[in-house]
């Protein structure tokens, strides 16, 4: 391994070849968002549009799903729980995939913004997963005849919920936030193993939970009169999820700025006293 400070003939040659590059190269588009200032400026204009679109789509989806969609031939009106349960389940898994991407960015590129976003994402992901479990339980009682069973699907989603909670707790457990972020990122990446288990549990093992209905797009096992409102609800919940995560991350960036400014002000206020105390 080359020591960065050692002036070997090799490093000298490299330095002379690139005389005007004092900063590391930040060419990729990913790094353009690493600047918290630019992130705040960009998201300030996005956020109202995202929130408006989420409310609009969610309103239309809720009306479609709760009033206009037909009941199921054997579940009756209970089928409407599905319009919340399924989007929550997809968001719990999609959100966790997002957390994994943020964790990779945090571990490899040491993005402070990825750390902040991951920290704000995990409580929201935990809430979404909890909603998935609760709505599933409310559906299971009248349909299956039980609130809960320990089959592979339900258990693996419960593990996903604990992973979200564990990440939220771990990143807040250290005095040094950077250390907490690194530990959280490692936990999040270990937990990625659970995602294929959740997805394929219903195919690999026999479970009480039914297999996926929407596997082939040309002939899904769900009638189109129920499928379209479900897709609209999913889009609405996804937009709302993104808006909430974005708003929380913005708040965290601004909070950190305020704290940095307060620290600087406190140092300035302390400085003259320390000089006068010294003589």
């Amino acid at each position, binding site marked *: *391994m080359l020591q960065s400070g050692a002036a070997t003939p090799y490093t000298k040659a490299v330095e002379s070849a690139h005389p005007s590059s004092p900063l590391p190269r930040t060419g990729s588009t990913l790094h353009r968002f690493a600047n918290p200032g630019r992130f705040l400026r960009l998201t300030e204009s996005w956020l109202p549009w995202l929130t408006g679109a989420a409310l609009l789509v969610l309103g239309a989806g809720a009306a479609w799903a709760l009033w206009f969609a*037909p*009941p*199921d*031939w*054997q*579940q009756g009106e209970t*089928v409407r729980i*599905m319009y919340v349960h399924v989007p929550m389940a997809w968001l719990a898994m999609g959100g966790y995939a997002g957390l994994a991407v943020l964790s*990779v960015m945090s*571990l*490899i*590129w040491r993005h402070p913004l990825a750390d902040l976003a991951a920290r704000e994402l995990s409580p929201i992901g935990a809430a979404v997963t909890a909603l998935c479990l609760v709505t599933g339980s409310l559906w299971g009682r*009248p*349909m*299956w*005849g*039980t609130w809960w*069973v320990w*089959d*592979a699907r339900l258990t693996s989603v419960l593990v996903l919920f604990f992973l979200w909670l564990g990440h939220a707790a771990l990143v807040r457990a250290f005095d040094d936030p950077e250390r907490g972020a690194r530990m959280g990122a490692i936990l999040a*990446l*270990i937990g990625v*193993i659970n995602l294929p*288990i959740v997805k394929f549990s219903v195919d*690999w*093992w*026999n*479970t*009480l939970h*039914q*297999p*996926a*209905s929407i596997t082939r*797009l*040309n*002939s*899904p*096992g*769900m*009638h*189109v*009169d*129920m*499928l379209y409102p479900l897709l609209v609800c999913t889009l609405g919940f996804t937009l709302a999820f993104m808006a909430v995560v974005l708003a929380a991350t913005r708040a965290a960036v601004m909070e950190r700025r305020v704290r940095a400014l307060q620290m600087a002000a406190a140092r300035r206020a302390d400085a003259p006293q320390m000089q006068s105390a010294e003589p």
Partner: protein
Amino acid sequence: MTRRRRRLYILLLCAIGLGSATALTLTAFQDNLVFFRSPSDIAREMPPPGRAFRLGGLVEAGSVERQGTTAEGRPTIRFRVTDGVSAVSVVFAGVVPDLFREGQGVVTLGVMSPDGVFRAREVLARHDETYMPPEVADALKRSGHWNPSQGAAPPAATWNTLEPGRPARSGT
């Protein structure tokens, strides 16, 4: 090799290690992670007497008999659980879930008695992945494409389509 690249390789190496460890563990668990056993499994290998296990399959058409109530006033029901190859008789005292009917998937928990009847202390209905409005189900039943007491609905391509121009191929 920059520090960033080294971290990337370490991460990839960990991912490969963890992934293969999990894959091996799950393969080893393959047979133990079943939630229920089918009547064919029971026919092949009878579980030890007195040991509780879960039996799952479809409620056989024409096998449901309601047999009055027990001394405590709980309704007693007798039916057969089948997987198309073998079938097992089940006796249960209690209230069955709303979805319970002939042709429905069920998962029952109980013990096998010496006379070959499964004494269930819990009956759960299993919902399959089919979601359809009552009118579609009625049309399928009327046209003779589907008898719900015989099992699952016909393939989705026969009653569902995402192209509004083309009607689904059900015989309505």
